[in-house]
Protein backbone atom coordinates (compact mmCIF):
# COMPACT_ATOMS: atom_id res chain seq x y z
CA UNK A 1 0.00 0.00 0.00
CA UNK A 2 2.79 2.38 0.98
CA UNK A 3 4.70 1.46 -2.15
CA UNK A 4 1.60 2.08 -4.26
CA UNK A 5 1.16 5.54 -2.70
CA UNK A 6 4.83 6.29 -3.27
CA UNK A 7 4.52 5.23 -6.92
CA UNK A 8 1.41 7.40 -7.42
CA UNK A 9 3.11 10.39 -5.74
CA UNK A 10 6.16 9.97 -7.95
CA UNK A 11 3.97 9.71 -11.03
CA UNK A 12 2.04 12.87 -10.09
CA UNK A 13 5.24 14.77 -9.30
CA UNK A 14 6.72 13.69 -12.62
CA UNK A 15 3.57 14.79 -14.48
CA UNK A 16 3.73 18.16 -12.73
CA UNK A 17 7.40 18.64 -13.65
CA UNK A 18 6.71 17.61 -17.26
CA UNK A 19 3.83 20.06 -17.58
CA UNK A 20 5.84 22.94 -16.12
CA UNK A 21 8.81 22.29 -18.40
CA UNK A 22 9.24 24.69 -21.28
CA UNK A 23 9.83 22.65 -24.40
CA UNK A 24 11.04 25.47 -26.63
CA UNK A 25 12.34 23.16 -29.35
CA UNK A 26 8.98 21.47 -29.79
CA UNK A 27 7.10 24.79 -29.86
CA UNK A 28 9.63 26.19 -32.36
CA UNK A 29 9.08 23.20 -34.63
CA UNK A 30 5.29 23.60 -34.39
CA UNK A 31 5.44 27.32 -35.13
CA UNK A 32 7.64 26.68 -38.19
CA UNK A 33 5.16 24.11 -39.52
CA UNK A 34 2.51 26.84 -39.71
CA UNK A 35 4.59 28.88 -42.21
CA UNK A 36 2.62 27.72 -45.23
CA UNK A 37 3.80 29.56 -48.34
CA UNK A 38 6.28 31.73 -46.43
CA UNK A 39 10.07 31.40 -46.33
CA UNK A 40 11.55 30.84 -42.88
CA UNK A 41 13.57 33.75 -41.44
CA UNK A 42 13.88 33.47 -37.67
CA UNK A 43 12.75 31.65 -34.56
CA UNK A 44 11.89 33.57 -31.41
CA UNK A 45 11.98 31.30 -28.37
CA UNK A 46 9.62 32.67 -25.75
CA UNK A 47 10.38 31.70 -22.17
CA UNK A 48 8.81 34.44 -20.08
CA UNK A 49 9.33 32.83 -16.68
CA UNK A 50 11.61 35.73 -15.75
CA UNK A 51 10.26 38.62 -17.83
CA UNK A 52 6.63 39.55 -18.43
CA UNK A 53 7.26 40.78 -21.96
CA UNK A 54 9.79 39.82 -24.59
CA UNK A 55 10.80 42.21 -27.32
CA UNK A 56 12.71 41.73 -30.57
CA UNK A 57 13.45 44.02 -33.49
CA UNK A 58 13.79 43.37 -37.21
CA UNK A 59 14.28 45.42 -40.37
CA UNK A 60 11.11 44.88 -42.40
CA UNK A 61 11.45 45.66 -46.10
CA UNK A 62 9.15 47.45 -48.48
CA UNK A 63 6.89 45.30 -50.69
CA UNK A 64 7.31 42.28 -48.45
CA UNK A 65 4.72 40.32 -46.50
CA UNK A 66 5.83 39.04 -43.10
CA UNK A 67 4.09 36.55 -40.87
CA UNK A 68 4.70 35.63 -37.24
CA UNK A 69 3.24 32.25 -36.31
CA UNK A 70 2.78 31.18 -32.71
CA UNK A 71 2.95 27.87 -30.88
CA UNK A 72 2.19 27.35 -27.19
CA UNK A 73 -0.07 25.35 -24.88
CA UNK A 74 -3.48 26.30 -26.24
CA UNK A 75 -5.50 25.26 -23.19
CA UNK A 76 -3.54 27.25 -20.64
CA UNK A 77 -1.86 30.10 -22.47
CA UNK A 78 -2.58 33.09 -24.69
CA UNK A 79 0.11 35.21 -26.31
CA UNK A 80 -0.43 38.79 -27.40
CA UNK A 81 1.93 39.75 -30.22
CA UNK A 82 2.11 43.42 -31.19
CA UNK A 83 4.10 45.13 -33.93
CA UNK A 84 5.44 48.65 -33.35
CA UNK A 85 7.13 51.04 -35.77
CA UNK A 86 10.44 52.79 -35.16
CA UNK A 87 8.66 55.52 -33.17
CA UNK A 88 7.15 52.91 -30.87
CA UNK A 89 3.69 53.43 -32.26
CA UNK A 90 1.64 50.24 -32.17
CA UNK A 91 0.63 49.24 -35.69
CA UNK A 92 -1.28 46.02 -35.07
CA UNK A 93 -1.73 43.05 -32.78
CA UNK A 94 -3.25 39.58 -32.85
CA UNK A 95 -6.13 40.25 -30.43
CA UNK A 96 -9.61 40.00 -31.88
CA UNK A 97 -11.69 42.48 -29.86
CA UNK A 98 -15.01 41.30 -31.29
CA UNK A 99 -14.38 37.60 -30.83
CA UNK A 100 -12.40 38.18 -27.61
CA UNK A 101 -9.69 35.77 -28.70
CA UNK A 102 -6.05 35.76 -29.70
CA UNK A 103 -5.17 34.70 -33.23
CA UNK A 104 -2.41 32.13 -33.59
CA UNK A 105 -0.23 34.59 -35.46
CA UNK A 106 -0.13 37.92 -37.21
CA UNK A 107 0.79 39.15 -40.66
CA UNK A 108 2.19 42.49 -41.72
CA UNK A 109 2.47 43.76 -45.26
CA UNK A 110 5.33 46.24 -45.16
CA UNK A 111 5.37 49.30 -47.38
CA UNK A 112 8.02 51.34 -45.55
CA UNK A 113 11.45 49.83 -44.91
CA UNK A 114 12.55 50.40 -41.33
CA UNK A 115 13.25 48.91 -37.93
CA UNK A 116 10.13 47.40 -36.40
CA UNK A 117 9.64 46.03 -32.89
CA UNK A 118 7.79 42.84 -32.09
CA UNK A 119 6.52 42.50 -28.53
CA UNK A 120 5.30 39.22 -27.08
CA UNK A 121 3.33 39.20 -23.82
CA UNK A 122 1.72 36.24 -22.13
CA UNK A 123 -1.94 36.61 -21.18
CA UNK A 124 -3.96 34.28 -18.97
CA UNK A 125 -0.83 32.17 -18.92
CA UNK A 126 -0.20 29.27 -16.62
CA UNK A 127 2.88 28.25 -18.51
CA UNK A 128 4.72 31.28 -19.93
CA UNK A 129 6.39 29.32 -22.65
CA UNK A 130 6.07 29.19 -26.42
CA UNK A 131 7.71 30.07 -29.71
CA UNK A 132 7.15 32.28 -32.68
CA UNK A 133 8.57 31.99 -36.17
CA UNK A 134 9.04 34.84 -38.61
CA UNK A 135 8.61 34.17 -42.31
CA UNK A 136 8.35 36.28 -45.44
CA UNK A 137 7.09 36.23 -48.98
CA UNK A 138 7.52 38.68 -51.84
Amino acid at each position, binding site marked *: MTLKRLFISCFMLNSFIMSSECNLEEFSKNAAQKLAGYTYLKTYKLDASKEAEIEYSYVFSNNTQYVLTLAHELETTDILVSIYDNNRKELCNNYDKKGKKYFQGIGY*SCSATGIYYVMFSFKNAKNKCGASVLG*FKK
Partner: protein
Amino acid sequence: MKQRHYKYIVPILLGTLFSCQKSSNNEDFNQIVEANPIETEVDVSSEIAMQVIEQMPSPLEISAIIKKTGLSYNSGILNPITHMENYTTNSQKAINFGIYATDLGYVNMYNSSQDAMNYLETVSSLSQDLNVSHFFNFELLQKLATNEQNLDSLMHISTQNFEEINDYLAKSQRGDLGALIIAGGWIEGMYLACEVHQKSDHKSLREKIGDQKVSLSSLISLMNAYKSNPDVELINKDLMKLQNIFNKIQVKEHTRESKVIEEDGIPMYQDKKVLTVMVTDDEINQIRTLVIDLRNRLVK
Protein backbone atom coordinates in the same frame (compact mmCIF):
# COMPACT_ATOMS: atom_id res chain seq x y z
CA MET B 1 6.29 48.86 -22.33
CA LYS B 2 9.25 46.87 -21.27
CA GLN B 3 12.55 48.74 -21.26
CA ARG B 4 15.70 46.85 -22.09
CA HIS B 5 18.75 47.90 -20.15
CA TYR B 6 22.20 47.48 -21.52
CA LYS B 7 25.45 47.69 -19.69
CA TYR B 8 28.62 48.72 -21.37
CA ILE B 9 31.96 49.07 -19.79
CA VAL B 10 34.27 51.99 -20.37
CA PRO B 11 37.83 51.45 -19.17
CA ILE B 12 39.26 54.61 -17.65
CA LEU B 13 42.77 55.39 -16.38
CA LEU B 14 44.65 52.59 -18.10
CA GLY B 15 41.94 50.11 -17.41
CA THR B 16 42.16 50.32 -13.62
CA LEU B 17 38.85 52.02 -13.09
CA PHE B 18 35.65 50.96 -14.74
CA SER B 19 32.39 52.78 -14.84
CA CYS B 20 29.08 51.24 -15.78
CA GLN B 21 26.18 53.03 -17.40
CA LYS B 22 22.75 51.97 -18.42
CA SER B 23 20.94 53.17 -21.46
CA SER B 24 17.34 52.78 -22.46
CA ASN B 25 16.25 50.93 -25.54
CA ASN B 26 15.27 54.19 -27.18
CA GLU B 27 18.86 55.32 -27.40
CA ASP B 28 20.44 54.82 -30.77
CA PHE B 29 23.18 52.23 -30.79
CA ASN B 30 25.37 54.56 -32.88
CA GLN B 31 25.08 57.23 -30.25
CA ILE B 32 26.14 54.80 -27.55
CA VAL B 33 29.26 53.86 -29.46
CA GLU B 34 30.11 57.36 -30.59
CA ALA B 35 29.62 58.75 -27.09
CA ASN B 36 32.44 56.58 -25.89
CA PRO B 37 35.72 58.46 -26.30
CA ILE B 38 38.05 55.47 -25.89
CA GLU B 39 37.30 53.73 -29.15
CA THR B 40 39.71 50.83 -29.02
CA GLU B 41 38.76 49.87 -25.48
CA VAL B 42 35.02 49.63 -26.00
CA ASP B 43 33.65 46.43 -24.58
CA VAL B 44 30.20 46.45 -26.07
CA SER B 45 27.62 44.31 -24.34
CA SER B 46 26.86 41.15 -26.22
CA GLU B 47 23.20 42.00 -25.69
CA ILE B 48 23.53 45.17 -27.78
CA ALA B 49 25.43 43.32 -30.49
CA MET B 50 22.73 40.66 -30.47
CA GLN B 51 20.02 43.28 -30.82
CA VAL B 52 21.70 44.62 -33.97
CA ILE B 53 22.35 41.11 -35.30
CA GLU B 54 18.76 40.02 -34.71
CA GLN B 55 17.37 42.99 -36.63
CA MET B 56 19.56 42.55 -39.72
CA PRO B 57 17.40 41.41 -42.63
CA SER B 58 18.28 38.06 -44.11
CA PRO B 59 20.11 38.07 -47.48
CA LEU B 60 17.54 35.44 -48.46
CA GLU B 61 15.11 38.30 -49.05
CA ILE B 62 17.33 39.58 -51.88
CA SER B 63 17.65 36.09 -53.37
CA ALA B 64 13.83 35.81 -53.27
CA ILE B 65 13.50 39.04 -55.28
CA ILE B 66 16.11 37.86 -57.79
CA LYS B 67 14.14 34.65 -58.27
CA LYS B 68 10.86 36.53 -58.56
CA THR B 69 12.22 38.59 -61.47
CA GLY B 70 12.05 35.36 -63.49
CA LEU B 71 15.74 35.43 -64.29
CA SER B 72 17.37 32.03 -64.46
CA TYR B 73 19.94 30.66 -62.04
CA ASN B 74 23.50 31.84 -62.65
CA SER B 75 26.23 30.07 -60.70
CA GLY B 76 28.80 32.33 -62.38
CA ILE B 77 27.98 35.22 -60.04
CA LEU B 78 28.72 33.20 -56.88
CA ASN B 79 32.04 33.06 -55.05
CA PRO B 80 33.71 29.93 -56.48
CA ILE B 81 34.19 27.21 -53.85
CA THR B 82 37.80 26.77 -55.02
CA HIS B 83 38.59 30.18 -53.48
CA MET B 84 38.18 28.72 -50.00
CA GLU B 85 41.82 27.60 -49.92
CA ASN B 86 42.90 31.24 -50.21
CA TYR B 87 41.41 32.20 -46.87
CA THR B 88 43.96 31.76 -44.13
CA THR B 89 43.11 34.28 -41.39
CA ASN B 90 40.07 34.04 -39.11
CA SER B 91 38.77 37.36 -40.45
CA GLN B 92 38.98 36.13 -44.07
CA LYS B 93 37.29 32.89 -43.06
CA ALA B 94 34.50 34.68 -41.19
CA ILE B 95 33.72 37.17 -43.95
CA ASN B 96 33.72 34.45 -46.60
CA PHE B 97 31.64 32.19 -44.37
CA GLY B 98 29.00 34.93 -44.56
CA ILE B 99 29.50 35.25 -48.33
CA TYR B 100 29.19 31.50 -48.95
CA ALA B 101 26.15 31.31 -46.63
CA THR B 102 24.39 33.92 -48.79
CA ASP B 103 25.43 32.01 -51.92
CA LEU B 104 23.98 28.83 -50.38
CA GLY B 105 20.70 30.69 -49.80
CA TYR B 106 20.66 31.79 -53.47
CA VAL B 107 21.41 28.23 -54.62
CA ASN B 108 18.63 26.84 -52.40
CA MET B 109 16.13 29.37 -53.75
CA TYR B 110 16.73 27.93 -57.22
CA ASN B 111 16.64 24.28 -56.04
CA SER B 112 20.05 23.47 -57.46
CA SER B 113 20.90 20.40 -55.43
CA GLN B 114 24.43 19.71 -56.73
CA ASP B 115 25.56 23.29 -56.07
CA ALA B 116 23.75 23.18 -52.72
CA MET B 117 25.87 20.18 -51.77
CA ASN B 118 29.10 21.91 -52.86
CA TYR B 119 28.34 25.17 -51.03
CA LEU B 120 27.19 23.26 -47.97
CA GLU B 121 30.52 21.42 -47.82
CA THR B 122 32.39 24.72 -48.17
CA VAL B 123 30.37 26.40 -45.41
CA SER B 124 30.78 23.34 -43.21
CA SER B 125 34.54 23.32 -43.74
CA LEU B 126 34.84 27.01 -42.82
CA SER B 127 32.64 26.44 -39.76
CA GLN B 128 35.17 23.86 -38.55
CA ASP B 129 38.01 26.33 -38.98
CA LEU B 130 36.01 28.92 -37.02
CA ASN B 131 35.13 26.37 -34.28
CA VAL B 132 31.39 26.71 -34.78
CA SER B 133 30.81 23.42 -36.59
CA HIS B 134 28.88 21.99 -33.61
CA PHE B 135 25.92 24.12 -34.73
CA PHE B 136 25.76 22.22 -38.03
CA ASN B 137 24.15 18.86 -38.41
CA PHE B 138 26.13 18.38 -41.59
CA GLU B 139 24.97 14.80 -42.17
CA LEU B 140 21.31 15.82 -42.05
CA LEU B 141 21.88 18.87 -44.25
CA GLN B 142 23.85 16.79 -46.74
CA LYS B 143 21.01 14.26 -46.88
CA LEU B 144 18.50 17.04 -47.53
CA ALA B 145 20.71 18.56 -50.24
CA THR B 146 20.72 15.34 -52.28
CA ASN B 147 17.00 15.65 -52.99
CA GLU B 148 15.45 18.69 -54.66
CA GLN B 149 12.18 17.97 -52.81
CA ASN B 150 13.95 18.68 -49.52
CA LEU B 151 15.57 21.99 -50.40
CA ASP B 152 12.96 23.95 -48.44
CA SER B 153 13.91 22.04 -45.30
CA LEU B 154 17.58 22.53 -46.13
CA MET B 155 17.03 26.29 -46.39
CA HIS B 156 15.09 26.34 -43.13
CA ILE B 157 17.58 24.29 -41.10
CA SER B 158 20.69 25.97 -42.51
CA THR B 159 19.19 29.44 -41.87
CA GLN B 160 18.45 28.36 -38.29
CA ASN B 161 22.04 27.10 -37.89
CA PHE B 162 23.49 30.41 -39.15
CA GLU B 163 21.25 32.23 -36.67
CA GLU B 164 22.58 30.08 -33.81
CA ILE B 165 26.17 30.70 -34.90
CA ASN B 166 25.65 34.48 -34.95
CA ASP B 167 24.03 34.40 -31.51
CA TYR B 168 26.83 32.26 -30.13
CA LEU B 169 29.61 34.47 -31.51
CA ALA B 170 27.90 37.64 -30.24
CA LYS B 171 27.62 36.16 -26.74
CA SER B 172 31.18 34.86 -26.73
CA GLN B 173 34.35 36.91 -26.91
CA ARG B 174 34.37 36.54 -30.71
CA GLY B 175 31.77 39.11 -31.59
CA ASP B 176 34.10 40.61 -34.21
CA LEU B 177 33.93 37.37 -36.19
CA GLY B 178 30.14 37.41 -35.88
CA ALA B 179 30.11 40.98 -37.22
CA LEU B 180 32.32 39.92 -40.15
CA ILE B 181 30.00 37.01 -40.97
CA ILE B 182 27.00 39.36 -40.98
CA ALA B 183 28.93 41.89 -43.11
CA GLY B 184 29.95 39.16 -45.58
CA GLY B 185 26.34 38.05 -45.89
CA TRP B 186 25.05 41.57 -46.43
CA ILE B 187 27.77 42.51 -48.96
CA GLU B 188 27.19 39.31 -50.96
CA GLY B 189 23.42 39.94 -51.00
CA MET B 190 24.05 43.43 -52.37
CA TYR B 191 26.60 42.06 -54.83
CA LEU B 192 24.15 39.48 -56.21
CA ALA B 193 21.46 42.17 -56.53
CA CYS B 194 23.86 44.57 -58.30
CA GLU B 195 25.19 41.88 -60.67
CA VAL B 196 21.72 40.71 -61.64
CA HIS B 197 20.40 44.28 -61.91
CA GLN B 198 23.28 45.23 -64.22
CA LYS B 199 22.13 42.53 -66.66
CA SER B 200 18.37 42.96 -66.30
CA ASP B 201 17.67 46.52 -65.02
CA HIS B 202 14.67 45.05 -63.20
CA LYS B 203 12.60 47.66 -61.30
CA SER B 204 12.13 45.62 -58.10
CA LEU B 205 15.86 44.95 -57.83
CA ARG B 206 16.64 48.60 -58.38
CA GLU B 207 14.26 49.51 -55.54
CA LYS B 208 15.71 46.80 -53.32
CA ILE B 209 19.25 48.09 -53.85
CA GLY B 210 18.20 51.68 -53.14
CA ASP B 211 16.28 50.55 -50.07
CA GLN B 212 19.25 49.22 -48.07
CA LYS B 213 19.96 52.40 -46.09
CA VAL B 214 18.40 51.12 -42.85
CA SER B 215 20.13 47.73 -42.89
CA LEU B 216 23.44 49.38 -43.84
CA SER B 217 23.13 51.73 -40.83
CA SER B 218 22.53 48.75 -38.55
CA LEU B 219 25.51 46.94 -40.05
CA ILE B 220 27.79 49.98 -39.58
CA SER B 221 26.64 50.21 -35.93
CA LEU B 222 27.62 46.60 -35.43
CA MET B 223 30.98 47.03 -37.17
CA ASN B 224 31.72 50.17 -35.14
CA ALA B 225 31.44 48.09 -32.00
CA TYR B 226 34.28 45.84 -33.10
CA LYS B 227 36.54 48.28 -34.92
CA SER B 228 39.45 47.39 -32.64
CA ASN B 229 39.79 44.49 -35.11
CA PRO B 230 41.65 46.18 -38.04
CA ASP B 231 39.88 44.00 -40.63
CA VAL B 232 36.51 45.15 -39.31
CA GLU B 233 37.63 48.77 -39.45
CA LEU B 234 38.91 48.42 -43.01
CA ILE B 235 35.61 47.03 -44.28
CA ASN B 236 33.67 49.56 -42.26
CA LYS B 237 35.45 52.42 -44.06
CA ASP B 238 34.09 51.10 -47.36
CA LEU B 239 30.63 50.67 -45.83
CA MET B 240 30.68 54.29 -44.68
CA LYS B 241 31.55 55.44 -48.23
CA LEU B 242 28.52 53.48 -49.34
CA GLN B 243 26.44 55.12 -46.64
CA ASN B 244 27.34 58.56 -48.03
CA ILE B 245 25.70 57.60 -51.31
CA PHE B 246 22.62 56.16 -49.58
CA ASN B 247 22.23 59.38 -47.59
CA LYS B 248 21.67 61.27 -50.86
CA ILE B 249 18.85 59.03 -52.06
CA GLN B 250 15.46 60.74 -51.96
CA VAL B 251 12.55 58.96 -50.30
CA LYS B 252 8.95 59.89 -51.09
CA GLU B 253 6.29 59.33 -48.44
CA HIS B 254 2.56 59.06 -48.88
CA THR B 255 -0.30 57.43 -47.03
CA ARG B 256 -3.07 55.11 -48.13
CA GLU B 257 -6.01 53.48 -46.45
CA SER B 258 -4.95 50.67 -44.16
CA LYS B 259 -6.74 47.35 -44.40
CA VAL B 260 -6.86 43.97 -42.70
CA ILE B 261 -7.57 40.68 -44.39
CA GLU B 262 -7.66 37.23 -42.87
CA GLU B 263 -5.33 34.68 -44.45
CA ASP B 264 -5.41 31.07 -43.21
CA GLY B 265 -6.89 32.17 -39.89
CA ILE B 266 -4.28 34.87 -39.34
CA PRO B 267 -5.00 38.61 -39.68
CA MET B 268 -2.81 40.30 -42.29
CA TYR B 269 -2.37 44.05 -41.79
CA GLN B 270 -1.45 46.48 -44.53
CA ASP B 271 0.13 49.67 -43.25
CA LYS B 272 -0.97 53.21 -44.11
CA LYS B 273 2.52 54.60 -44.61
CA VAL B 274 4.23 54.03 -47.96
CA LEU B 275 7.87 54.96 -48.54
CA THR B 276 9.24 54.87 -52.08
CA VAL B 277 12.96 55.24 -52.78
CA MET B 278 13.70 57.51 -55.74
CA VAL B 279 17.13 56.16 -56.63
CA THR B 280 18.76 57.74 -59.70
CA ASP B 281 20.86 55.98 -62.35
CA ASP B 282 23.92 57.81 -61.11
CA GLU B 283 23.33 56.66 -57.51
CA ILE B 284 22.76 53.06 -58.60
CA ASN B 285 25.98 53.14 -60.62
CA GLN B 286 27.95 54.54 -57.69
CA ILE B 287 26.53 51.90 -55.31
CA ARG B 288 27.23 49.13 -57.80
CA THR B 289 30.82 50.23 -58.38
CA LEU B 290 31.60 50.37 -54.65
CA VAL B 291 29.84 47.08 -53.80
CA ILE B 292 31.45 45.11 -56.64
CA ASP B 293 34.89 46.50 -55.86
CA LEU B 294 34.56 45.72 -52.11
CA ARG B 295 33.15 42.23 -52.64
CA ASN B 296 35.78 41.28 -55.20
CA ARG B 297 38.56 42.36 -52.83
CA LEU B 298 37.04 40.23 -50.07
CA VAL B 299 36.72 37.00 -52.07
CA LYS B 300 40.17 37.08 -53.70
